[in-house]
């Protein structure tokens, strides 16, 4: 619309805006006929056609009027493509052709007028009929075609459009489309008349900047050619029929038969003719009442496209924001509840639509002792839930639960699991205790009873589901022999160990263990990095300002110091023992690592952080890194023997005073596990302890911290434990 006139003539009527139509026409064979296509395309087309026609009528700029008229006609064509009938497609094709001829001619005349009169403002134009007779004739022919007057090509395709409209039922109403189509055609006639009447009739305007006259042939020739086509097609539509038919066939793409209808002027007294008459008459009437209408339009605040667009976009954005922000309100409790409900619902559906076999295994008898353990477990869990607001109580009960599970593992033939569960339990509780040092000791009552009831119901359903699933598993059987038969059979001969669980961990599935120690190592690194981030930020000041807690009279009781010192080598010995026997008896690198870690933690607890860390020479980072490297390099070592990663071998060694014992390369791997576990646990606990140490501590003690330089120069990057 803002482009130079020949450019807009080309763009608006012929090519660019029709590219979209082309796409729709191309997709016609695939998509038309579906309900979604019909409602969306026809609906959009109709609305566009009517609204744009109304806006066009009240535009005072010639080119703006034509531009909105183009939008309206594109809406019309879109609507025709949407109806999904072959006749509609044919009408659309025909109208594309007709619209191109008259609209391009009109754009060019607008350019001529602009060029001659020096303005395109309709309110400043008038009476040009006498001054520019040639331009007048061209404009008259083209605009009458646009208005849909018989014997011009615009009439023919508009008739077809109206005929198609009478056959179209949208949203269940057979009247909706015809009425709207007529209204659109009416406004279309009105603005076509206005273009002709307001510019060429009426009084001459004296204030015209120049004296307008017809331009040379070079300027009026091209529109004249187009107008000739308008008239020729309008009088003898049969001439255009072969072109229209071949294009329509291309649009239909064989998806629908060619319509039998022919392009002709007279179809008899059809409803379409009546609608056409209404439109033309109504358009003329509208033009007569134009002055008051234009005032009313201006008073109503004409909807500028930009304003409408902005309003729509803002509305959409607000709607989207409301939806997404209500859904993502940051409430993890809601997210978790949705997760739980989804899982139970989907899994329940899968279960209900499947077939469960009858129990295949006999149940083991219930003995009194396990029953007591079970009772303790269940009661501890329930009390925990009931009393969880007191966090220390919750922690103690959590320990009880863990202990019961560990005993349960021992009872159910899993000594390794029992040992691991026990030692992990100890470390976890220490960790949570350290954390609780900073957190509030109580959980306040916040959620209303209704919410707790809802959560309880969700929890109960999930628990029931999990319990039912495990029960059916326990009384059912494997569908095929399990692969662990191979592990039992080959553990000794292939893996060199009699503790099958350990051989699986370090040999058959050593790769899992490799991943597992890396998880542990990463956990320690994350904890360390977080501690550093906290201590280098504003949190540090807050920690330093914490009120000093009441502590027991003697922080490092003599008894405890002595006992832990004596026990240190003993526990280390036990650790080595557990490590070495791991391949054949319950034990192994992981448990040994935890045991040694606990021994070191005891020194911290007994003698204080400063004393212990001053005597600790090897940085925990290094231990973790070394652990991963040792485990990895043990695995890589196999490459030099042409075997894959983690391939093990083993042999028996006899060092004279000792009994014969076994050395397996898997033990090198286990050593990596040991180091990684030790380093990770110690680095984690150490990081927590460092946070704690910031609180209530005399400044003089800083100089025996791990790295004093960090406190003064936080940007050296060398503050590592």
């Amino acid at each position, binding site marked *: 619309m803002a482009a130079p006139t020949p450019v807009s003539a080309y763009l608006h009527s012929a090519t660019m805006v029709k590219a979209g139509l082309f796409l729709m026409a191309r997709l016609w064979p695939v998509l038309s006929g579906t309900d979604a296509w019909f409602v969306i395309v026809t609906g959009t087309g109709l609305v566009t056609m009517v609204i744009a026609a109304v806006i066009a009528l009240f535009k005072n700029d010639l080119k703006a009027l034509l531009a909105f008229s183009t939008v309206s006609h594109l809406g019309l064509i879109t609507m025709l493509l949407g109806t999904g009938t072959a006749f509609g497609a044919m009408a659309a094709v025909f109208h594309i052709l007709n619209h191109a001829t008259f609209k391009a001619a009109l754009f060019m005349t607008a350019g001529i007028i602009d060029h001659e009169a020096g303005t395109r403002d309709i309110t400043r134009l008038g009476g040009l009929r006498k001054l520019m007779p040639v331009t007048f004739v061209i404009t008259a022919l083209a605009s009458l075609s646009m208005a849909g007057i018989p014997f011009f090509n615009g009439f023919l395709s508009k008739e077809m459009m109206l005929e198609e409209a009478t056959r179209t039922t949208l949203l269940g109403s057979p009247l909706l489309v015809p009425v709207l189509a007529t209204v659109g055609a009416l406004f279309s006639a009105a603005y076509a008349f206005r273009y002709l009447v307001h510019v060429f009739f009426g009084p001459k305007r004296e204030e015209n900047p120049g004296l307008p006259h017809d331009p040379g042939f070079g300027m009026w020739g091209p529109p004249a050619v187009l107008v000739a086509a308008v008239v020729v097609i309008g009088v003898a539509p049969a001439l255009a029929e072969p072109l229209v038919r071949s294009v329509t066939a291309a649009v239909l793409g064989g998806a629908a038969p060619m319509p039998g209808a022919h392009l002709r002027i007279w179809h008899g007294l059809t409803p379409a003719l009546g609608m056409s008459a209404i439109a033309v008459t109504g358009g003329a009437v509208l033009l007569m009442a134009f002055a008051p209408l234009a005032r009313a339009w201006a008073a109503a605040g004409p909807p500028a496209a930009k304003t409408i667009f902005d309003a729509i976009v803002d509305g959409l954005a607000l709607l989207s924001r409301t939806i997404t922000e209500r859904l993502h309100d940051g409430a993890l409790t809601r997210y978790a509840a949705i997760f739980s409900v989804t899982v139970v619902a989907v899994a329940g559906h899968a279960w209900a639509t499947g077939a469960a076999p009858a129990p295949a295994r006999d149940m083991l008898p219930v003995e009194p002792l396990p029953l007591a353990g079970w009772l303790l477990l269940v009661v501890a869990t329930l009390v925990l839930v009931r009393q*969880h607001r007191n966090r220390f109580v919750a922690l103690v009960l959590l320990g009880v639960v863990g202990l019961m599970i560990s005993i349960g593992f021992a009872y*159910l*033939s899993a000594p390794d699991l029992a040992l691991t569960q026990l030692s992990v339990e100890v470390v976890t509780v220490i960790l949570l205790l350290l954390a609780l040092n900073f957190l509030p000791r109580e959980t306040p009552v916040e959620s209303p009873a209704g919410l707790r009831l809802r959560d309880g119901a969700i929890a109960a359903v*999930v628990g029931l589901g999990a319990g039912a699933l495990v029960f059916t598993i326990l009384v059912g059987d494997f569908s095929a022999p399990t692969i*662990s038969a191979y*592990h039992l059979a080959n553990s000794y001969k292939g893996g060199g160990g009699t503790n099958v669980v350990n051989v699986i961990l370090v040999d058959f599935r050593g790769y899992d263990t490799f991943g597992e120690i890396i998880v542990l190592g990463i956990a320690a690194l994350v904890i360390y990095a977080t501690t550093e981030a906290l201590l280098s930020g504003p949190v540090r000041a807050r920690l330093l300002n914490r009120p000093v807690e009441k502590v027991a009279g003697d922080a490092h009781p003599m008894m405890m110091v002595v006992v832990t010192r004596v026990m240190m080598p003993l526990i280390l010995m036990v650790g080595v023992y557990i490590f070495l026997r791991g391949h054949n008896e319950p034990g192994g690198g992981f448990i040994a690592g935890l045991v040694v870690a606990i021994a070191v933690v005891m020194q911290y607890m007994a003698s204080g952080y400063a004393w212990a860390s001053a005597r600790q020479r090897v940085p925990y980072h290094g231990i973790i890194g070394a652990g991963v490297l040792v485990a990895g390099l043990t695995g890589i070592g196999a490459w030099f023997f042409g075997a894959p990663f983690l391939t093990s071998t083993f042999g028996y060694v006899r060092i004279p005073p000792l009994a014969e014992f076994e050395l397996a390369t898997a033990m090198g791997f286990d050593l990596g596990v040991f180091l990684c576990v030790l380093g990770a646990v110690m680095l984690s606990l150490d990081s927590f302890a460092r946070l704690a140490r910031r609180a209530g501590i005399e400044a003089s003690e800083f100089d025996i911290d791990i790295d004093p330089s960090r406190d003064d120069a936080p940007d050296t990057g060398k503050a590592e434990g």
Partner: protein
Amino acid sequence: MELLVASSVGVLTAAGIYMVLRLRTFPVIVGTALLSYAVNVFLFASGRLAVNQPPILRDGVSAYTDPLPQALVLTAIVISFGMTAVVVIVALGAYLSSRDDHVNDRPDRPIRQDHQDRQDHHGGGEGAQP
């Protein structure tokens, strides 16, 4: 025995889910710990139950329990320990940097001083400590 194990898993899962749905970080962490107990027992049970058949090869013994789930559970225990440690430090970081241990986050309500005061007021903050 199977019923005991199944009901333990059920009770632990239910308790874990209930605790995860609480509003403060500490109960949520306890909830995840309970859930990891539950799932460890579940995974262990996938090898079916056996009494007095530890998978440690002995001469003359031919019945062993399934060792593979035990190895899987060992891996899972260690991993869940690492996860617990991390969630504890992240929760601690959240609490220490905003003095608020709610798990829910309101993007439209930035963490400000007045917010912290409110926390302290109703006993969630350090003001409640001895």
